[in-house]
């Protein structure tokens, strides 16, 4: 390992600009002559729009234009799309209601887009929006996940019972048979609480149109600018793909919420041409709460069957998933193929059957949020495993160990084939770091102080590196999920790597450069990573699902192989040797068995001056591209252990220790990987203890600011003890599994298992706020101790 190669904790190249305030985020871009967009949003969760009178707004100071859904329709601008087709059990396609960028006839959630005002200043746009007169016929609303299918409210005409699909996975008969054989059945009812992603940078967009060239440019807070361009051109139809440039510059966190193609950027691009000026929109936090796609929101009943030896026989799960008022870009895939295939967890479960009913409600659309489906699956499996162990009177760690999969590859009953792993190794290491053997002592010590101490496990697995295009295509995906890379070697030997992955905090400029430095043997500062601009990078699928290492870097590795192969040809000509005799090692192309060699830079120069070979036998230049399509998902897995203490007087829960032992396969930069783990845990702890989006019965979002939606703060979290085990991933050239979502997937059940352990009963839901824990503690056996 070199100081900057694979495995080194290289300090991030991008940090110089970020720590000095020189990062360039979308809102930092100001285009000459730009006007500002402000969206008039629905104050009602469900209403028919009888009429919209924009007249009074158009004459307000500074107003450039006011548009409604009719204007979009007149220009034949299509609606927003959902790119993953799910079929119900009966074979019928999911019921996708129309999703216009600006409402047509009806609004379906508070925050739905009614009209847009474009003005000289944002303040003027807001002033004018207040002057728009909308005549609403307010309709009853449905917000409750479990009630949606029965509610006397119809969100979309296409779906009389508000059901998007009734989907299933697994073998029902085999599962029923397993339950019939069971010695013991453990049952659980779970709510996976609705979350608001809340990257600290709110979404923003600047649309621009050049009438001279008929070119459009969109600056947008996107995790996948090429997908945005594809959808905006091919489906929504705002501009032809080759005329639309999408730039996603520095992006301040995404966590899934910036994957999707939203109304606002659609309108900004379209309106820029209409008003012949750049149009800028920046979300404020309230708008972000109302209109960013939310995450999770499942209601689940699950049962686990075990035999007389405590071996798991079967699992059956019924989940109702709230998809909100419209189907967001990938929403349908989240509670289906990103969820049920993970229900086997790390366990050898012979039979699994899962049914998922997806429903519409009058709430913000729900889509992928860090983990996307896998946290929901892990919560079901790990809560159920913990509860089963307790009911059987077995140690939760040993119960898990007994049921771990130990032989690989392992085909689960829910379409996944796990390639490799060593779950017991992670468990052993985690038990050691967590000092599990002395836990009872610490519990007693807490009890002496009147506190309830608990410990909770989470043995999670996830499917990352999405994904083989053929496989996801057969499951309904509208796109392939490969990645592209282009390696451009300059005549001076410096290298630019163009990648379809997008970094919004993950540190690609560093890790990707480490790979290049390692493979080409050149200094890391000779490498630039270019991403986030459709005019520079030909195509790419973007960053989500912990895929950039396993898929994005594999594409780069593939392109680097081609560069090296071409370099050998060049070196062979220059060194007048046979290509077969050229070895590439430590940045040098040498003739085997001699001391004749050329440095990488010399070969680069020779490739461009082309003096030593004719263009007939070898093309000049040194630039190679590659598309990498994975052959399998990757399966990061690990064990997290949460130890916490509850003050039964107030219900305050304090996490005392957090142990994470993860197997991410080969690690490029351990510093960055650990950072991803930390951030994921924080979001998972946030879900378990603090965060929850709450709509009232009329559909108003009660938690529409940081005053009511509780974000994790530094004081809410401990420092984390992070360990690693490594089983290299066999399905990609780098052995990488991915690390971005692990913490968010692992953490929630670890926390709730620890709380239920402390309380001595299972009756607590997420978020386990002080109020909820206090109430649950009233039911718990109180320790004998003075306050």
């Amino acid at each position: 390992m070199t100081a900057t190669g694979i495995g080194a904790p290289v300090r991030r190249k991008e940090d110089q600009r970020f720590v000095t305030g020189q990062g360039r985020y979308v809102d930092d871009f100001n285009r000459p002559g730009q006007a500002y967009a402000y969206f008039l949003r629905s104050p009602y969760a469900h209403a028919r729009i009888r009429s919209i009178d924009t007249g009074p707004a158009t004459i307000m100071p500074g107003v450039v234009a006011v548009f409604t859904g009719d204007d979009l329709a007149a220009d034949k601008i299509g609606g927003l799309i959902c790119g993953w087709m799910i079929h119900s059990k009966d074979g019928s396609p999911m019921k996708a209601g129309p999703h216009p960028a600006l409402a047509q006839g009806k609004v379906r959630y508070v925050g739905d887009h009614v009209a847009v005002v474009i003005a000289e200043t944002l303040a003027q746009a807001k002033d004018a929006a207040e002057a728009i007169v909308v005549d609403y016929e307010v309709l009853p609303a449905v917000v409750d996940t479990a009630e949606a299918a029965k509610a006397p409210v119809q969100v979309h005409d296409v779906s009389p019972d508000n059901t998007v699909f009734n989907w299933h996975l697994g073998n029902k008969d085999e599962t029923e048979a397993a339950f019939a054989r069971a010695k013991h059945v453990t049952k659980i009812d779970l709510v996976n609480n609705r979350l608001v992603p809340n990257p600290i940078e709110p979404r923003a967009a600047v649309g621009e149109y050049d009438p001279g060239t008929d070119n459009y440019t969109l600056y947008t807070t996107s995790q996948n600018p090429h997908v945005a361009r594809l959808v905006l051109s091919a489906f929504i139809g705002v501009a032809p793909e080759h005329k639309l440039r999408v730039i996603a510059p520095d992006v301040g966190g995404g966590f899934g919420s910036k994957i999707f193609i939203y109304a606002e950027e659609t309108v900004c691009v379209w309106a820029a041409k209409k008003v012949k000026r750049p149009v800028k929109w920046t979300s404020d936090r309230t708008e972000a709460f109302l209109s960013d796609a939310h995450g999770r929101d499942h209601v689940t009943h699950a049962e686990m069957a075990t035999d007389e030896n405590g071996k798991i026989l079967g699992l059956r799960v019924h989940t109702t998933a709230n998809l909100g008022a419209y189907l967001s870009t990938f929403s349908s895939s989240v509670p289906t193929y990103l969820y049920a295939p993970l229900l086997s967890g790390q366990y050898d479960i012979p039979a699994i059957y899962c049914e998922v009913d997806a429903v519409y409600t009058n709430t913000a659309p729900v889509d992928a949020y860090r983990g996307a489906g896998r946290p929901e699956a892990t919560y079901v499996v790990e809560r159920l495993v913990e509860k089963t162990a307790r009911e059987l009177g077995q140690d939760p760690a040993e119960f898990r160990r007994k049921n771990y999969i130990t032989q690989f590859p392992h085909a689960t009953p829910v379409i996944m084939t796990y390639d490799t792993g060593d779950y017991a190794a992670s468990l052993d290491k985690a038990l050691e770091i967590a000092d599990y053997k002395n836990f009872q002592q610490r519990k007693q010590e807490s009890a002496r102080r009147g506190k309830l101490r608990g410990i909770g496990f989470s043995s999670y697995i996830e499917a990352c590196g999405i994904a083989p295009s053929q496989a996801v295509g057969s499951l309904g995906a509208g796109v392939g999920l490969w990645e592209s890379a282009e390696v451009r070697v300059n005549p001076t030997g410096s290298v630019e790597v163009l990648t379809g992955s997008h970094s919004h905090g993950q540190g690609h400029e560093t890790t990707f450069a480490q790979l290049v430095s390692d493979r080409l043997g050149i200094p890391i500062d000779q490498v630039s990573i270019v991403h986030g601009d459709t005019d520079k990078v030909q195509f790419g699928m973007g960053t989500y699902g912990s895929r950039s290492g396993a898929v994005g870097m594999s594409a780069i590795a593939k392109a680097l192989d081609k560069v090296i192969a071409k370099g050998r040809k060049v070196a062979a000509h220059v060194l007048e040797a046979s290509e077969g005799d050229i070895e590439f090692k430590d940045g040098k192309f040498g003739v085997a068995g001699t001391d004749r060699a050329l440095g990488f830079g010399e070969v680069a120069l020779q490739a461009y001056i082309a003096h030593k070979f004719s263009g007939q036998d070898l093309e000049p230049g040194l630039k190679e591209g590659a598309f990498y399509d994975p052959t399998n998902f990757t399966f990061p897995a690990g064990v997290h252990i949460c130890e916490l203490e509850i003050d039964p007087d107030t219900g305050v829960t304090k996490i005392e220790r957090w142990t994470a032992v993860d197997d991410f396969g080969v690690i490029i930069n351990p510093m960055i990987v650990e950072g991803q783990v930390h951030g994921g845990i924080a979001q998972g702890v946030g879900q378990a203890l603090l965060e929850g989006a709450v709509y009232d019965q009329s559909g108003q979002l009660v938690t529409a600011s940081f005053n009511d939606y509780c974000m994790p703060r530094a004081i809410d979290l401990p420092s984390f003890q992070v360990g690693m085990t490594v089983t290299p991933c066999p399905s990609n050239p780098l052995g990488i599994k991915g690390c971005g979502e692990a913490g968010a997937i692992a953490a929630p059940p670890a926390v709730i298992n620890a709380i239920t352990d402390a309380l001595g009963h299972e009756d607590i839901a997420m978020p386990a706020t002080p109020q909820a824990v206090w109430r649950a503690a009233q039911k718990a056996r109180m320790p004998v101790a003075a306050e």
Partner: protein
Amino acid sequence: MTTVSLTVNGQSVTADVDPRTLLVQFLRDNLRLTGTHVGCDTSQCGACVVHLNGQAVKACTTLVVQANASVVTTIEGIAQGGELHPMQAAFREHHGLQCGYCTPGMIMSAIDIVARKGNGLDEQTIRAELEGNLCRCTGYHNIVKAVAAGAQAMAQAPLRQAAE
């Protein structure tokens, strides 16, 4: 319109502003100092923290007219002579940032913590003092490490501190 005069990162600035202009808007829109960010509208996230007369404040909850005749320091004003401020260097060294959006506010808050609480900061103090800054990426683990290390480094660079 009202005229304001203030010193920003050592430079005198005079401008006619609409009184409703927030300090953060003035910095970003008038002075193009876009390192100071806006992450919320209820004064909680701390992405907009700057120093006003040496104290950390939320520039999204301060009118620029309230900062008239004051001295403002932003994230762009703390590195000197091309060398990072010790707190900036510590955030980089300890991976105290990921997407970078909260980072300017975090660093400005961290420097203020050191000014108030000294160079030897324990973990609990740092966590408590970061109450007004939200980060969604790091889980705070490395921010806490960075602030502790930055605080120590500031003790070793007293001259630079005085220069700020």
